[in-house]
């Protein structure tokens, strides 16, 4: 079958394939994140580890390039050898003799034991250093501490320093050269194991019931970053999304001041408010300043300051809210909030009320 292929044409074919493979691998990856579209809820790019926006994420990427380089080098050498064998040591058509029998060679075998050992040793030392740098067992100095609580299938963010609780959207200030603000998250779970992962801000850390974990982030650029739960946690694992909004310092302080306030009390939506307070809503949801003080579901005090509902399943618009209040199972099948069997009119009234919770 290979009679008409000359060694020269074989070599050029080989070279062509090699170049094409290299190009594909080198171009595809950066291309993927550079061209990722702006998404609906305002995030800037695909949640890729190649566009780090935080100190630990950058450290991980720097180490990853080294790992990539080493592994890619080994890949090229080994695949090259295999391809070489395929072409060079293919049996000639009518050669029925046996190949010379070589049982082994101590110097060669010793060499290819020692070289990988050395590579592994170097890789181990470099990586170990990064582990100890990133995995902080106590809060770094001057850090903002936030407690993250994983629920099936949404996130609760507790700001003990400021005394309020919010959901699904984590707001943090950006760190600056003059004033570093590390974010030190305490991770707890209310039910099963989840995992907090926003690739552009850092690696993932599991959120485990009966076990407290910590995660250090230190965003260096403002913007909206997306991530999601990375440990399978049940039916709606796919829609347990995370949005992190990184503000400039002053903007963050404004946001905090607003979140600290109690809910707006607007008499024009009294019908909706009374409906909300008469139905089961208040057993699960809190709206500070009213009788609603449930803690099983997201705090709604400043619902309209958030861009998404259902932990990111849809954007936070009046229409989506109406569908959600009518029957959450339409938008997020399997989620823990049941349909309250409200009439269309009641739904409209409640949504009118929710829309005032700026």
């Amino acid at each position, binding site marked *: 079958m290979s009679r008409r292929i000359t060694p020269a044409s074989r070599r050029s074919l080989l070279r062509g394939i090699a170049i094409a493979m290299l190009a594909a691998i080198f171009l595809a*990856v950066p291309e*993927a994140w550079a061209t990722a579209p*702006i*998404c609906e809820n305002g*995030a800037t790019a*695909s949640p*890729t*580890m190649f566009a780090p926006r935080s100190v630990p994420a950058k450290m*991980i990427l720097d*180490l*990853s390039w080294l*790992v990539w380089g080493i*592994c890619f080098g*080994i*890949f090229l050498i*080994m695949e090259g050898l*295999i391809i070489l*064998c395929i072409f060079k*040591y*293919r*049996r000639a058509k009518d*050669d029925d003799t*046996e190949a*010379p*029998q*070589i*049982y*082994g060679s101590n110097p*060669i*075998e010793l060499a*290819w*034991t020692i070289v*990988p050992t050395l590579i*592994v040793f170097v*890789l*181990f030392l470099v*990586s*170990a250093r990064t*582990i100890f740098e990133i*995995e902080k067992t106590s809060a770094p100095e001057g850090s903002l501490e936030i407690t993250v609580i994983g629920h099936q299938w949404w996130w609760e963010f507790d700001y003990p320093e400021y005394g309020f609780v919010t959901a699904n959207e984590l707001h943090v200030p950006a760190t600056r050269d003059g004033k570093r603000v590390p974010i030190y998250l305490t*991770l707890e779970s209310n*039910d*099963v*194991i989840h995992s907090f*992962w926003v690739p552009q801000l850092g*690696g*993932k850390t*599991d959120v*485990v*019931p*009966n*076990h407290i*974990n910590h995660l250090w982030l230190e965003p260096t650029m403002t913007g909206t970053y*997306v991530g999601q739960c*990375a*440990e399978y946690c*049940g039916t709606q*694992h796919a829609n347990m999304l995370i949005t992190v909004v990184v503000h400039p310092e002053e903007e963050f302080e404004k946001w905090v001041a607003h979140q600290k306030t109690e809910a707006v009390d607007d008499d024009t939506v009294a019908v909706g408010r009374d409906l909300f307070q008469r139905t089961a809503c208040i057993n699960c949801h809190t709206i500070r300043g009213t009788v609603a003080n449930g803690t099983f579901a997201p705090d709604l005090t400043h619902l309209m300051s958030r861009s998404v509902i259902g932990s*990111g399943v849809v954007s936070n618009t009046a229409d989506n809210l109406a569908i959600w209040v009518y029957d959450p199972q339409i938008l997020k*099948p399997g989620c823990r909030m049941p349909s309250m069997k409200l009439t269309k009119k009641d739904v409209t009234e409640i949504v009118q009320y929710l829309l005032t919770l700026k």
Partner: protein
Amino acid sequence: MTALDHSGNPLRAKATFLGRMHEWVSTADHKKLGVMYVTTGLLFFLIGGLEATMMRWQLAVPDSSLLSPSDFNRLFTMHGTTMVFLVGMPILLGVANYIIPMQIGARDLAFPRLNAFGFWLFLFGGLLLYFSYFGAQGLYGMGSSPDVGWFAYAPLTERTYSRGHSTDYWILGLLVSSFGSIATGINLITTILTMRCPGMTLMKMPVMVWVMLIDAILIMIAMPPLAAAQVMLLFDRLMGAHFFDVQGGGSAILWQNLFWFFGHPEVYILILPAFAYVSEIIPVFCRKVIFGYPLMVAATVSIGFISLGVWVHHLFALGLSPMVNTIFMGSTMLIAIPTGLKMFNWVGTMIGGKIRFDTPMLFSTGFLALFLIGGLTGVMLSVVPFDWQVSDSYFVVGHFHYVLFGGLVFAIFAAIYYWFPKVTGKMLSETLGKWQFWLLFIGFNLTFGPMHVSGMLGMPRRIYTYHADRGWELWNMLSSIGVLVQIAGVTFFVWNVIQSLRKGKDAGADPWDGWTLEWATTSPPPEYNFEEIPKVYSCRPLWDLKHPEDPDWKYE
């Protein structure tokens, strides 16, 4: 005992259908059990593949609503469980069952009836698991098949979060079949240690026998902790114990440690047989003795040893202390060294050979090329900070499919093409085999290559849908297209087997000009394997016979 014809084969033509059924069901012959293991494994492979196809169909486009979330979750749970416990395990046990006694010149395994017992436990364990589709319709209709993922992390498996009986079916199905595996493991160890033919010292065993010995030892060490953990979980679910029930003070971390103390050696239990098959096939098709036999054996033993001490690398994101993470990063990187050695020695065998690219060799070469990638991404994943980014993402899905599909499944196909003539007396078609290889090779890379990219772009595994705005569309579409190509490849295989069984070329005793003892007897072999127990002087007894002027034992 059935009547035998002149070459020692049972007289099948005269047997009635019921008679033949009875013969298969009641057999304790290692060859029949081997065939049943592999056939059942391949059938489950088709089912598991179908499950994967449905998942890829759902994920081909963003915001797809083809499958409901719970259906999708059931599919990936069943896909993973099936492929590991009902495809990988039975095929590796089946091939070992058939080939090992013949390679060591024995007439059967040490405990033939225990062997049959092991097979039936496996089969009914598998059926029990699949019966959940009918039988687990529990409270609130939340039954049906298990939906907790193949590693079933507590407390998701506790009664609070997993109503109905689907998780109970998962536990019991695997418990039953893992007892079967333990039994067969013990059987293999005993056989290899006590039933070798005269002259076959430990260092004169074929590489495959060595590898399967270590594999069986790993089965014996790793399976019992899983069984124990499953019994504990069963206590939690059915009797209100609190081992993993966090609401009652149990520990979610305990399950992860117990599971992966089984789970990681299990990965090596699955990949070692792949090493075994290619270690047999590559030398024969390169017409060259395996390079560095003692080092191969040493590497196998050290892989077995180290693989028992790396399980925490599945838990790098669990929030263990930096010191624990560092230690297990070290042990994980360490295992790359013996694995790399094997890779070098296989390539070393090819260098200077006269390679015949028949289908078994084609699949073995495919194994080398693909397993290399899986191995290297494995080294990358051992780097804890990198793992923090990509663990539980599609990168990991890509990685372990390169190991278990590109590695194990390609090696299994190599083994099937290699030993099918021995088992049936018929050759598989080379043309169809080559079609199958290229379709599978292209389809495989198209499916699992892009997964590395989508993982690094932040796509977690086990999500039933994703939004259109995350830059994952292209990669998922490519993955799904690749599945179609793979299906075409597998279709060629099924067609090839059916065709060759009906009118394949006669194989003769030794179609590949092989060197180990299984090629010294007829194809298919008689029930007692060898008329006379052979006596060997080296690792390659048939080489010595074929080349009396230059036998191996002169050099060993």
